[in-house]
């Protein structure tokens, strides 16, 4: 089923457009790097702020850093789908791609749980110490996602 999905994506107009337009593919490639910088950069400063000083004033960083990371994620989805569509059958079964997907899932579950548990405490400026575990998991998840993504080209 997954392989059929990859084949369908590769055979779609999106895959076709990505393979045949030098500019579209190059633009997606460039923006995917920019998006990765926004995601990992934005998340990292916020996570470090949560880890430092027991999360004091974390929201003052978060209210700027979180939108940057979210904007990066919004950039990653369409550019990532295009880059995948170009060679979906080969890239979709690349071991580094599986690692990347797994760590994206971890990062997304982690961020959802963090905000569900600590969203109001974060805005009130009173994060409990347990929040630091989530910050560590977040740092790990998004950094591994970036590295695994880059590794796809080498496996």
């Amino acid at each position: 089923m997954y392989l059929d999905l990859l084949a369908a994506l590769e055979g779609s107009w999106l895959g076709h457009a990505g393979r045949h337009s030098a500019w579209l593919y190059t633009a997606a490639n460039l923006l995917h790097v920019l998006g990765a910088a926004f995601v990992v950069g934005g998340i990292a400063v916020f996570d470090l702020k949560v880890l430092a000083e027991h999360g004091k004033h974390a929201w003052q960083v978060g209210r700027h850093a979180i939108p940057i990371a979210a904007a990066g994620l919004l950039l990653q989805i369409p550019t990532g789908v295009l880059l995948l569509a170009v060679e979906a059958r080969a890239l979709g079964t690349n071991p580094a791609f599986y690692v990347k997907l797994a760590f994206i899932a971890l990062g997304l579950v982690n961020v959802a749980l963090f905000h569900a548990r600590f969203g109001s405490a974060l805005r009130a400026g009173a994060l409990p110490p347990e929040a630091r575990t989530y910050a560590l998991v977040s740092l790990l998840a998004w950094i591994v996602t970036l590295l695994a993504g880059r590794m796809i080209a080498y496996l």
Partner: protein
Amino acid sequence: MKYPLFGLFFSGALLTGGFAAAHHGWGSYDAGRLVSVTSDIQQANWENPHVTVVVTHENKNWDAVLAPPFRMSARGLNPDMLKPGTSVRLEGYPSTRMETEMRAERIVVGGKTYELR
């Protein structure tokens, strides 16, 4: 068929050939073994992520991976220069996974050498 659109896409994917699925990462070429191929181009695919051509080497068809179309253009190559039947010389490294696949470092076409890295 339950999903007619999907069937259409899938057969389209099958028709475009299995070459893309055989395309491997940059780590899987043996940079210690330079292969030189002089051949007519059998088939050329001017596509992202890398332009590929099929050439004949020692009585076998080889898939050669060149550069991305954007870089090919930047180095002065274009699709018309790689039409089937054109004589080319390729220098590159053989795949460590596929017996008849190579990654080309340079291509000589029309008496001119184009570096692809």
